[in-house]
């Protein structure tokens, strides 16, 4: 448990306290400057509290991604104040925890202990909590920090096997305590803008995401095996290998809590969301085996008779193997003769380890014809490219780029067997106010264009020759792609349609009786007379009002209906937008979002600058593994139920998640609710089954099984959850909430729930302590900082320069992100680049301007953006190494890639950038930001621990506010 103390804002009455506090000089592990001490001296006390409320007054900046690193149960405390030594009790711990102290700033007090394996085993003293005491501040705090006895037993489960005997551990599981002087709080009450006090709190004293991340990295050296139930995996920021031993890999499924409360009451009391983020088709690193394909023959996969759960390791074979009992519903089902196998002395089937479905967490079944639409085996899917050829599209160079690229890209259509040609067929359409279909039948000497101008009632003008095999029609296709840019080079048509474009693709797939994907390249608001015609409704005046929500809703119902039809056909839509003005992403995105597609947006697209980003996105999008016409069903053991789903999909009933397309980057967040009691013995099981058509046209079922523990003690719950996943859930929950609620209400709800979670912990799990202390569960100590990032995101708190389209775009984008992506999105990765070593990355620093050194160069990454920040007084040598220029003034900030220089530094830096790009599903364009340049404003937006320009609170301020909320709940 970590305890951090905040310096109390100097209240006249308080002073003593702070001094008292500072008095106990903790061992100074950190050499960092004494922030704490300075704090007191700092500015006026009263303003402090006010500031805390500021967050609420004004919205935070957009997307920011915290790094979080969650350590196992142990507590970590971060004491920012270097000058002030931590309390004695902690000194013991520090050492272990500090294995890799981060750069100067906040990390000094490292948390540490948490690595159960090495450090703790022997030592009885609960290593867990290391109260980091912020220097100076409230005197009371220290006392409270004494580590409390943690419930050791519970941890055993949560730790990986190697861990120390749980019992021996005596720690105060995951709690961070922050002390705020009561005085400060008194003031907090009155919202006062001119708050200055928070500055007194040393940022280093509050929980540091970087520290958590680094600790987790240090801890996770062994491969993560999934065999043990209820064991939390390493953080998403940690590189680790997974061994499937019966539960799905965290790359497929991550849960908010690995110890679920047994009862609904407990769940309600704690307010911890019970959810799982599932990424059914996630790509695995090369050293992990992709799910095996199991064929149960003509009868199809073996399933429970009652709940229809698929055969999995949780099925208990009984009666010598003649029957099996379902782990989900306990129903007993006969084993079909062809599947019969004897049991060994432990009751396991003899062939247990020969069959993936009996021993692994993730695998695939080959589906039979019963699992197909109309009881007919599916056709291979088709890709249809629909290219806007209106004036803007041609002029921006988009049309030319797309056509050029497609010529080569078509050779890389997804295929299962790399040796074989892809089974995917392709078709082409261009459009402005009317649609042009192309006949590219291989027997033609020249492609034929078929114009459909009756857009009010769309249809496909041709059948034969529209969808073709690339290899067979290669010459015709190439000729077509050569001619498209020429044909429309002189176009004066500025109006476009959009609804009919999707209808066209849909109709084409219907006609060909197959599923598939549409790639729509679109530039402008569809104002031409046609179904789905839109008008410009961007109205900044609505922002902040109750009507704001309407801006996120589609302006016409047409696209919802269309989306439904698309889903029924298995027609997935990927939308590439190249807008120069408002295009109403909220409406245009409806179909892509409902069909499991993606929206890409390149505002003010300029061929030269944005081509690379666009092409990389396109290449990836075309090549990536994708399944079609998918249905996902989550089954759970009796006691809980999947009640809500977040992501890009469509639901026509309450249980089946329908995905016209499902690619390897799409994640679905599933929320669970109790409908009965769970038992600690059996734990909670879930099985996520995705029925889909592979890119070769094979019908398959992908099964992911996950078992978590159940607990009757709240403390166990708090000991074993994952903040990153919780944030993923919260963000999706909130971003969906803005559709129906004022954004302010959504923000308040988030803060409330978060406060309740923490208050519940404080009330039920933490040892009694003064109300002035903020005590955070170890696993959730980053919850406030991350939550603040969500609250400050552009969606929930837009700055003046954030367009409605951007907000709608982000809203939709986040809805299908997995935990890794939301993490870096909300808390961006900021790497100092002063020293680069091959083989390892420099340790990140916290997202705050204070952490930037004028003499340094930093790389910031959010998953969508990539910045290279160059300090004003950076060393010449660095400049030469990176840019090949000796002077700061000569850096060309419009460059989108670094010059290729022959020095190790440059090479390594470019390597790093490349590796970052490779990790993300979307290509990040590099932006070079010079300190004090105008572009720095954009960059600062991502320094999420700072106060944002749009009024978002700084981390420190928010923490104070959170504390206030918790106190209110407790009192």
């Amino acid at each position, binding site marked *: 448990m970590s305890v951090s103390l905040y310096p109390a804002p100097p209240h006249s009455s308080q002073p003593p306290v702070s001094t008292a506090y500072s008095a106990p000089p903790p061992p100074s592990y950190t050499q960092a400057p004494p922030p704490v001490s300075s704090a007191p001296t700092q500015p006026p006390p009263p303003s402090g509290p006010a500031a805390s409320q500021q967050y609420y007054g004004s919205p935070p900046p957009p997307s920011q991604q915290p790094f979080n690193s969650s350590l196992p149960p142990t507590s970590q405390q971060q004491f920012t104040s270097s000058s002030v030594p931590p309390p004695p009790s902690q000194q013991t711990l520090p050492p272990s925890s500090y294995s890799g102290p981060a750069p100067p700033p906040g990390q000094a007090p490292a948390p540490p202990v948490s690595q159960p394996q090495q450090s703790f085993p022997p030592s009885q003293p609960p290593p867990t909590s290391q109260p980091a005491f912020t220097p100076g501040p409230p005197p009371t705090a220290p006392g409270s920090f004494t580590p409390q006895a943690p419930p050791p037993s519970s941890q055993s489960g949560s730790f990986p096997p190697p861990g120390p005997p749980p019992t021996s551990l005596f720690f105060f599981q995951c709690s961070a305590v922050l002390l705020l002087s009561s005085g400060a709080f008194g003031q907090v009450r009155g919202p006062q803008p001119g708050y200055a006090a928070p500055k007194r709190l040393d940022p280093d004293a509050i929980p540091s995401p970087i520290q958590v991340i680094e600790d987790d990295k240090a801890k996770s050296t062994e491969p993560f095996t999934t065999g043990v139930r209820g064991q939390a995996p390493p953080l998403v920021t940690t590189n680790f290998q997974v061994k499937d031993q019966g539960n799905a890999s965290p790359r497929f499924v991550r849960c908010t809590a690995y110890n679920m409360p047994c009862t609904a009451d407990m769940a309600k009391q704690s307010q911890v969301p019970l959810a799982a983020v599932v990424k059914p088709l996630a790509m695995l690193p090369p050293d992990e085996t992709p799910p095996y394909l199991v064929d149960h023959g003509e009868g199809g996969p073996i399933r429970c008779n009652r709940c229809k759960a698929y055969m999995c390791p949780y099925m208990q074979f009984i009666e010598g193997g003649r029957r099996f009992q379902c782990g989900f519903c306990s129903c007993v089902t006969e084993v079909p003769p062809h599947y019969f196998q004897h049991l060994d002395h432990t009751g396991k089937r003899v062939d247990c380890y020969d069959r993936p479905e009996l021993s692994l967490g993730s695998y695939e079944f080959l589906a039979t014809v019963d699992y197909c639409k109309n009881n007919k085996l599916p056709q291979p899917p088709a890709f249809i490219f629909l290219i806007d050829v209106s004036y803007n599209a041609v002029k921006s160079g988009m049309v030319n780029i797309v056509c050029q690229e497609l010529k080569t890209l078509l050779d890389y259509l997804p295929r299962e067997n790399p040796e074989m040609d892809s089974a995917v067929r392709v078709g082409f359409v261009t459009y402005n106010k009317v649609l042009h279909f192309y006949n590219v039948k291989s027997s033609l000497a*020249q492609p034929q*264009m*078929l*114009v*459909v101008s009756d857009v009010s009632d769309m249809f496909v003008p041709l059948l034969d020759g529209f969808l073709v095999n690339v290899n067979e029609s290669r010459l015709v296709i190439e*000729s077509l792609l050569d*001619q498209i840019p020429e044909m429309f080079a002189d176009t*004066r048509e500025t109006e476009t349609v959009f609804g009919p474009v999707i209808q066209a693709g849909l109709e084409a797939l219907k006609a060909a009786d197959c599923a598939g994907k549409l790639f729509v390249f679109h530039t402008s608001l569809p104002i031409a007379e046609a179904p789905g015609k839109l008008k410009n409704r961007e109205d900044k005046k609505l922002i902040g009002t109750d009507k704001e929500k309407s801006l996120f809703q589609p302006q016409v119902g047409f696209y919802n209906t269309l989306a439904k039809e698309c889903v029924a056909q298995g027609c997935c839509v990927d939308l590439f937008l190249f807008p120069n003005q408002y295009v109403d992403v909220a409406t245009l995105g409806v179909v892509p979002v409902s069909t499991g597609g993606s929206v890409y947006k390149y505002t003010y697209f300029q061929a030269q600058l944005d081509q690379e980003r666009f092409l990389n996105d396109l290449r990836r999008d075309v090549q990536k593994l994708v399944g079609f016409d998918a249905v996902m069903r989550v089954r759970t053991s009796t006691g809980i139920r999947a009640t809500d789903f977040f992501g890009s999909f469509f639901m026509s009933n309450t249980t089946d998640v329908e995905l016209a397309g499902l690619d390897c980057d799409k994640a679905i967040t599933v929320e669970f609710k109790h409908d009965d009691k769970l038992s600690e013995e059996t734990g909670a099981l879930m099985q996520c089954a995705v029925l889909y058509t592979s890119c070769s046209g094979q019908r398959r079922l992908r099964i992911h099984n996950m078992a978590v523990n159940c607990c009757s003690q709240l403390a166990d719950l708090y000991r074993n959850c994952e903040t990153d996943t919780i944030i993923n859930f919260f963000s999706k929950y909130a971003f969906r909430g803005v559709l129906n609620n004022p954004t302010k209400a959504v923000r308040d709800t988030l803060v409330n729930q978060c406060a309740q979670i923490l208050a519940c912990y404080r009330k039920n799990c933490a040892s009694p302590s003064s109300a002035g202390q903020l005590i955070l569960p170890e696993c959730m100590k980053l919850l406030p900082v991350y939550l603040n990032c969500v609250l400050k995101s552009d969606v929930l708190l837009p700055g003046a320069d954030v367009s409605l389209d951007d907000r709608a775009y982000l809203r939709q984008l986040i809805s299908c992100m997995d935990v890794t992506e939301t993490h870096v999105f909300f808390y961006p990765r900021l790497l100092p680049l002063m020293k680069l070593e091959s083989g390892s990355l420099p340790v990140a620093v916290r997202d705050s301007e204070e952490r930037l050194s004028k003499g340094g160069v930093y790389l910031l990454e959010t998953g969508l953006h990539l910045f290279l920040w160059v300090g004003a007084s950076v060393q010449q040598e660095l400049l030469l190494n990176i840019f090949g220029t000796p002077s700061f003034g000569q850096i060309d900030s419009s460059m989108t890639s670094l010059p290729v220089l022959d020095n190790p530094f440059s090479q390594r830096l470019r390597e790093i950038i490349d590796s970052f790009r490779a990790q993300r599903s979307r290509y990040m364009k590099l932006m070079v930001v010079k300190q004090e340049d105008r572009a720095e404003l954009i960059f600062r937006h991502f320094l999420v621990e700072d106060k944002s320009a749009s009024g978002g609170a700084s981390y420190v301020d928010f923490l104070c506010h959170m504390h206030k909320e918790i106190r209110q709940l407790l009192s």
Partner: protein
Amino acid sequence: MATFPEYIAQNEERDGVRFSWNVWPSSRLEATRMVVPVAALFTPLRERTDLPPIQYEPVLCSRATCRAVLNPLCQVDYRAKLWACNFCYQRNQFPPSYAGISEVNQPAELLPQFSTIEYVVQRGPQMPLVFLYVVDTCMEDEDLQALKESLQMSLSLLPPTALVGLITFGRMVQVHELGCEGISKSYVFRGTKDLNAKQLQEMLGLTKPAAAQGRGPQAAPQPLSNRFLQPVQKIDMNLTDLLGELQRDPWPVTQGKRPLRSLGVAMSIAVGLLECTFPNTGARIMTFIGGPATQGPGMVVGDELKTPIRSWHDIEKDNAKFMKKATKHYESLAIRASTNGHIIDIYACALDQTGLLEMKCCSNHTGGYMVMADSFNTSLFKQTFQRVFTKDVQGSFKMAFAATLEVKTSREIKVSGAIGPCVSLSAKGPCVSENEIGTGGTCQWKICGLDPATTLALYFEVVNQHNAPIPQGGRGAIQFVTQYQHSSGQRRIRVTTTARNWADAQTQIQSIAASFDQEAAAILMARLAVYRAETEEGPDVLRWLDRQLIRLFMFHLRRSPFLQVFNNSPDESSYYRHQFNRQDLTQALIMIQPVLYAYSFNGPPEPVLLDSSSILPDRILLMDTFFQILIYHGETVAQWRKAGYQDMAEYENFRHLLQAPVDDAQELLHTRFPMPRYIDTEHGGSQARFLLSKVNPSQTHNNMYAWGQESGAPILTDDVSLQVFMDHLKKLAVSSAA
């Protein structure tokens, strides 16, 4: 004075006019007693190689309601340079250009031999000829291939400046943009949705873009229409390729279904396209169809094969559910097309019906051709289609476009109406009768498509009252003014002025009777009968006809497919009637009473009675029904032929005998449009039924006395023979009840 037959022939030769009566009864009362009205068969563009067009414009009567053209019947005052209109008696000044006229220096239009004269209008732009091909793609590959070849061939027959366009259809309708380089473009329309002209214009991008207005006016209209209609010389390669690449409609047709064929929409689009690009300009929409319309507006049958296309039986039982709607659709198209002077031709080649019944008005109203054949891969279609592009000695097509026919009459007579491939222009005038016969109520008709054979029946009414006698020697005059677009692009006016004597029926009944033109009257009445058959219920027409007049000739008319629908599909009836309504007298006569020639060793070929008694074993018969040319080998001849005598040198005469009818048939085949069906059959052959159904069944299985005799072959029918018919007639004629 020559005999009446000579007079009639001469008039027909010169003016293309044949009147039912060549002396007219002088009062209304008398005229109605004549039963057969005063009427004329008029062939506006009758070929006159001796008639050079005059390179100036006609002189018109200055009275606004008259506007008759100066003609040989006008009285001219050469000194005063005045002429009196012979219709309204208005005195008119000659125009200045006629200053030099005198008795010895008369302009052609005053010479009696120029009662028919043709003027060339010098004003106005040279009109292009427009040919729009509308091609069905739902057919067997063989058929389509044959059709493609025919179409490609036709391109070579078009004048280089003619504009051509191409619309293809199947399940969808494609309007092809011509002359584009590289990618060929076409606009595609759903076959189930009708579009009005404005929508179509927008969808084809034919509206003048608003932006273009600022940039010079000259560029606007021409290039727009050119996208779909281009001069042959510019795009014949392109179009030939396009036709070459034309594929059978690719949409799958499941078993038990007809292909979806969007004929109605295709024609609608064709009409709409020309409507907005070339209004009031001569244009041909040539529609090639391989089956019935099965979807969208104009569908005549569903796509389920198990439901057959409507028959007469269904129609009588009011069981043809698509018929009314479809007819309405095509009628509206016919009206639109004819309003703009556009012709719709229909070439229907299929074994089953294609919906000609519903579509007939498209051809009938616009003067278009209707051709029916079994397949595009038959010489019937190929030759017929090729013959459409026949040229005259000047090298111009024998087709004319966008014509209007105006009839002007003397005061004593008015025009009641017309029957033929025309539509009314609703032009009221002093010479319009209140009694309508056929398309009446007007003195002007539009005939969008004309060829030298196109013949209209015009019906007149004598309005002179009994108590207002016409002075002795008075003549009634009728002037036909035909304005048309010549295939050279010129606008021309052909004026025919005719006059006939009046006679008092009470005193001069013999001369009136002598002037009766039996053939013309028969055809005129037949047209009337057919017209009524088309517009009224069938049996009533027969009864009406029987009541109206009784002549030998009517025996065959009653049995002809123009009035009898038995054994004919609705499509066939429509087709026969269409041809009957446009062909000239000679051809029409053949249609009603087929011609039968006999070839034998007994003498030279001779015409024989259309009677079963003419069918003898040692004869070869050649029958011409206009629609069919049939060669029938009698029993013995057929046996000889089978035995191969014709190949033996010593029986060369037999070979010649066999060859003679074939040569004659070829001659007929080559001159006729549309090409007849050629049938070569023999005694007992299945195709012999065509002959047997036509001949007068003088011997049937009922009058057994004929059996075993040498004379002819008995016909198995319950129809009455001519003998019985005549006996019955005689009885009727003398009975007081009639």
